[in-house]
């Protein structure tokens, strides 16, 4: 049977943490899921935030890096980085997540493409009637767009 939406061709990974999770919880789920982003959910499984590789990096690097544009001279201070990572792990995820970006499960390829081009996030959440379904990875979406659909004439 022919697919009706592009998302039917993509495996959506339901990687998420509840909103009362810590940065450490979210980092563990992110690492285990091998996704570029996971969702932060409320009690009704609505998406309240996203946590991706960028937010994970920000948590384990000095926060003034955002203000620095030249750091080639810097050397790793492993003790300091370890201390920072330990401190960050206990912080609430709400301090580290970004605002949620979601698309509906039946969204068109054009709409999803527009969202990815404009929001510049590596992964966004797919929802069905407001409930979280899974994470959609930008690279997976690009692959689905580039490669011919299974069974189609190439």
């Amino acid at each position, binding site marked *: 049977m022919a697919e009706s939406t592009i998302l039917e061709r993509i495996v959506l990974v339901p990687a998420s943490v509840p909103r009362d999770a810590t940065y450490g919880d979210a980092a563990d789920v992110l690492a285990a899921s091998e996704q570029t982003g996971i969702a932060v959910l409320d009690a009704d499984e609505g998406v309240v935030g996203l946590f991706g590789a960028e937010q994970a990096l920000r948590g384990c690097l*000095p926060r*003034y890096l*955002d*203000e*620095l544009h*030249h750091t080639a*001279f*810097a050397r790793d201070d492993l003790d300091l980085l370890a201390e920072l990572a330990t401190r960050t792990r206990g912080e609430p995820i709400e301090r580290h997540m970004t605002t949620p970006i979601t698309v509906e499960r039946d969204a068109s390829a054009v709409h999803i493409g527009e969202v990815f081009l404009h929001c510049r996030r590596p992964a966004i959440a797919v929802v069905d009637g407001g409930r979280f379904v899974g994470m959609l990875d930008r690279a997976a979406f690009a692959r689905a767009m580039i490669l011919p659909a299974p069974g189609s004439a190439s």
Partner: protein
Amino acid sequence: MDILAGVIFVCALALIALEWVHRTKVALAGALLVVALGVTDLDEAIEAVDWATLGLLAGMMIIVGLTERTGIFTYLALRVAQLSNGRPVRLVFLLAGVTGVMSAFLDNLTAILLVVPITLLLADVLRISPIPLVLVEIFASNIGGTATLIGDPPNIMIGTHVAELSFVDFVVNLAPIAFVTLAVSTAVLFMLFRGSLQVAPDRVAELESLDPARDVRESRYVKRSIAVLVGTILVFFLHAPLHLEPAVVALGGATVLLLVTSDDVEEALERVEWSTIFFFVGLFVMVGGLEAQGIIDRIADLLADATGGSRTGEAMAIMWGSAAGSALVDNIPFTAAMIPVVDQLQAGPEGSDDALWWALALGACFGGNATVIAAAANVAATGVLERSGRHISFLGFLAYGLPITLLSLALATVYLLLFQL
């Protein structure tokens, strides 16, 4: 209508001081009310905008923004820190010196945004608290910025408004007192902070091992950018004999830099802080409303009456009053309102005297050190600290800012009395 103009301006100042709404939104809303309620008409409002100030600001933002991409300022800050060999006295004076000089020739807000992030990294390397060093840099930026026409927004506004005052006039009349004040203030701050700036020998070795040259962009770009920046500063020194307005020099430098480098114009124009430009537009329109309604004349008359028409009294009232006003509000709107007041005093029986302009510059710039909201550089630096997980409270800043401001104003008072009045 005059009461309305005054109420709009005072409310705008209060909102800017309280920081409940972004200052640019406040200024634009104030300007809208001034025009919409008929305090001034649109033609007068457009005429009230000092386009030369905006041109100078935009030009310097482009030049500094593009030059910053070379990595040369990071290199300078890091080399200076290495020269200290981790000795607290050297570290404090060298960082204050480089911040002061960069503030004088780039502008103090840019200087602080370049130096503070590097300082946070240095403090991590040296395992010391960055807060004392950042405070030293904030105070140095406001004092150093006092030295030139382009160093601090109040000076930019005065210098572009008063055509007779050249870049050299600012340097000759303000740089000496700025230098003395910077040296004395830094010495006082060092005495207060020295206990928290002790560096372990292994950390000094770590600092020495950093290679700042690794961040400098390819040499042709660096040479062109630095040549244009230095050339622009030199032309500032010569703008009066060359009959070039400071805004023309800054915009000319920006244009030359765009022509000689391969930077994308769109990206270069992103370096202009449009929120600051529109903040100034709103302020100029509001102050235009005060002028149109005769409020500025009345303030000038009050000031002249209160000081008995004495030029010394007027200068002292302007300087100390501007410092107090800047400390409570923000030195930019306060200076915008004071410039026409000083204009009126100059038109009085005592005649024209540059000392009043120097009094305003010293009061507004030095007053910028008193509180955390008094100058844009303070807000920017404490914002960077906040984002890095460190906090300086309003009172915590005031505990150092107020004494430094009083010390600076005392030195400026002696200077004005001895050399200008």
